[in-house]
């Protein structure tokens, strides 16, 4: 899923305080799982902003709302009136949702309440870690199901580098060495010999290096 982290309240306030009306708009899928951008968080953020406005003596009407997903047209049906009434939207969606709102409502100012941080999983309650960089050319089949692109700090395709120490990365003891994981996993699979196969050079043209990517279903 897409993981996001709420921006500091001060930063959000600086963006939105010029408006007279603001809709704080949750997105109830990915960013709700990490308790940062769901409809519930929209309610909380709206309340905090109202208190901020009261204290700063700024007149701004702040309402909260939300939909299941801010990246598909269908979900916006239920908030058509609200959007038409809104003077500005503070979106708690990921960067995709914010842009979707911006494109869908050409003259409606929209602001991000979150920093979209990574594509990750939930390894323990309340703990999210990055697992994929959407590089567009998956190598997991070669690396025993552990991604060197997103999990090795140097994106090495033939690691580990000389900084791997006790299973941890040289840049932080908080980070597992991806190549230690790959080697352990290949060994567990009885495929350690595969380590010495030299893979082809990575084709980064399928990554964002090749410009914005898209694909279309042929039968639609």
């Amino acid at each position, binding site marked *: 899923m897409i993981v996001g982290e709420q921006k500091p309240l001060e930063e959000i306030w600086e963006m939105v305080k010029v408006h007279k009306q603001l809709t704080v708009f949750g997105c109830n899928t990915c960013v709700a799982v990490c308790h940062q951008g769901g409809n*519930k968080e929209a309610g*909380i953020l709206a309340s*905090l902003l*109202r208190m901020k406005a009261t204290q700063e003596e700024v007149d701004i009407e702040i309402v909260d709302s939300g939909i299941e997903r801010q990246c598909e047209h269908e979900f916006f049906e239920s908030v058509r009136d609200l959007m038409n009434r809104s003077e500005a939207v503070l979106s708690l969606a990921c960067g995709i949702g914010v842009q979707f709102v911006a494109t869908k409502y050409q003259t409606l100012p929209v602001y991000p309440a979150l920093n979209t941080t990574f594509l990750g999983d939930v390894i323990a309650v309340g703990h999210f870690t990055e697992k994929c960089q959407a590089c567009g050319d998956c190598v997991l089949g070669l690396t025993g199901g552990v991604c060197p692109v997103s999990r090795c700090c140097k994106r090495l395709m033939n690691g580990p580098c000389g900084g791997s120490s006790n299973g941890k990365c040289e840049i932080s003891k908080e980070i597992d060495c991806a190549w230690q994981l790959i080697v352990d996993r290949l060994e567990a699979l009885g495929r350690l010999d595969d380590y010495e196969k030299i893979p082809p050079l990575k084709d980064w043209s399928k990554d964002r290096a090749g410009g914005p990517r898209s694909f279309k279903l042929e039968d639609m």
Partner: protein
Amino acid sequence: MTADGEKIEERQSPEKPCEIPPDWKANIIAFACHYCAFAAADLAGVMRLSYLPNSKVIRLPCTGKLDHIYVLRAFERGIDGVFVAG
């Protein structure tokens, strides 16, 4: 409350000191669990114990039902303190 929670409290208050207006009375909301604290409050009444009248009690089926937003809304409306008992 965790040890960490206590630590947060120890830090300096973010509030600026101000003069207390003469017409101010402490306005408090108590969220009480129906089965424990609310019953205790009842008992206090039955026992005719007297205590300061600033607290308004809101009964919840269980304090687990307490949502962040309830507490925030209370503060939003100018409540001076909230306690949760369960």
